[in-house]
């Protein structure tokens, strides 16, 4: 029984460490500390949000669009930096005045990979309130690849799959 509990303890420790990572990320986003948020990503990150279609069950393999098709977001680090820098310009009207967001992240499942990276799947609910009465609830999942770096983890790949087909938001100007 001993080896099993040792594995369980290691899994628990990893789960705890990763949850802390995602909770911290959520607070960085909700407190608009986007410079620090950017530091959570590797320089070679792919930040990807495919489209989600209504397809018949027999064609479910086509529900989530592949890379190469038009995505909602298909960004590298440079584009992410550009998006963050833009918000500080005082002229990014979609977010000035800024949205009020609440990122809730859970349902974490981690799969360690042979190269030391770990695949992490989480579910999220993000509430966004903007201007006077605009508000949206975005739900979906993130499939991340986290890479070990000195003193912690960085996101080397993020795929965000929304549960919506037609987005009910006037725009998608907050980060998920």
């Amino acid at each position, binding site marked *: 029984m001993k080896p099993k509990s040792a594995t369980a303890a290691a899994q628990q420790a990893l789960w705890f460490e990763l949850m802390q990572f995602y909770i911290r990320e959520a607070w960085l986003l909700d407190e608009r500390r986007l410079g620090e948020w950017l530091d959570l990503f590797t320089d070679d990150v792919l930040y990807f*949000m495919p*489209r989600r*279609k*209504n*397809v*018949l069950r027999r*064609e479910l393999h*086509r529900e989530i669009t592949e890379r*190469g*098709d*038009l*995505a*909602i*977001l*298909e*960004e590298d680090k*440079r*584009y992410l*930096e*550009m*998006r963050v*820098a*833009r*918000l500080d*310009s*005082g*002229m*990014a*009207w*979609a977010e000035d005045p800024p949205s009020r967001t609440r990122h809730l992240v859970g349902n974490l499942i981690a799969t360690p990979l042979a190269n030391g990276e770990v695949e992490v799947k989480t579910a999220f609910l993000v509430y966004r309130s903007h*201007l006077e009465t605009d508000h949206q609830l975005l739900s979906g999942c993130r499939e991340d690849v986290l890479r070990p770096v000195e003193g912690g983890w960085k996101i080397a790949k993020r795929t965000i799959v929304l549960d919506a*087909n*037609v*987005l*009910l*938001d*006037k*725009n*998608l*100007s907050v980060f998920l």
Partner: protein
Amino acid sequence: MEAARNYAIIDPATGKIDRRIFSDQAVYDDEMERIFGRAWLMIGHESLVPEPDDFFHTYMGEDPVILTRDGEGRLHALLNMCRHRGNRVCRADDGNAKRFMCTYHGWTYRNDGSLEHVPGESEAYYDALDRPKLGLIQARVETYAGIVFATWAEDAPSLEAYLGDARWYLDTAFNRRDGGMLALGPVKWLEPVNWKTMVDNCSDNYHVPTSHLSSARVQSRWLGRPRLSHEDQFASPNRHVFVNGHSITFREADDNAPRYVHGISNDTFKAFQDYHDATMPEAERRLGALRARKVQLGNHSIFPNGILGFRLALPRGPLKTEFWHFALLEKDAPEEIKRAMRVGSQANNGAAGLFEQDDVDNWRQVTEASTSRLARRLPQDLSMGIGHAGTHPDFPGVVSERYISENNQRLFYRRWEEFMNAESWADIALDPIKARFDGTATMRG
């Protein structure tokens, strides 16, 4: 034939527009009938249904429509409404299907629209149904360079006449290559905006330096894209022209530079220039030297609701529009070019696009101003450049003297009046095709 109407919503002498056309339900209902019930509407692209039995679900105004390619390869635009009680017969966005079955009682239609099977045709209906007449309602379908248009109006002119000389410009973006275009998308989202504001904005290059300053600035710094300042816009050699109901802007270029599409940046510029040079002989053969070398399509709209190429503003009530963002790429372009255009397209446009996200609150508040007691009585002002447009020896249509002008927008609302007041297509004027379409490109690509 519809009853006569007498909409006079724009004063051509002052450019003042009655704001109630952006919020009034009765006006909107008239628009659905008189504009979306009559005009040729963009509904899809051939590349979205490349194989036999492929389908793509789309809309004509608010009417749900299935664009199908039948087993013989013919395109159909079928009203997605079972002829029995009106349930939709297709609930998927796209796919491949030989037939569509209504999930209420099982009436089943072939993908050419014909009604193939009715449960209990003898047992329950006593063979009294006129089944051949109960196919799905079909719209007329025609294509332009792979873009699929449809109309409900039997008396509508040909698509070629409807596009008229606008095609002279559109060809420079959509008809350059022998291999045609590939449509990717759409990203779909709802904006609290009247559809007309989105369309008229396609000719509004005045808003760019203010609405999009933050995006232009970071893209100029990070990607080496142009600054798009007021000075740049006012000094721009681009042109603004209204052609047969359609609003066009274009760059008058003779510097052998590639068309400034999404995805051009410092690190991709050489690839785009190489591609431009390599394809120039083909473009010249297809479009003639003048259009291949000197005319580059810019922002534009195709009446009534086609936006910047093949993108759609689908009305969802006076105060709401569903936006469909597609990327249209040249099918035979190298992977590097396609990738850059695809990534550039999502970075700039779409729900999360840097440029597009900043438009929404402006447009929505323009729409909202049409709903409150005092504001709705105050007209919009579209007076910019009145009296400064006319014909041009080289370019078809009504050409503004300056790129930054509201002439296209004024004429868009005049066209709107024309459709709204017409009793039938006989009352809607079409400019004769006068432009010289040099080269081999045709409506069929």
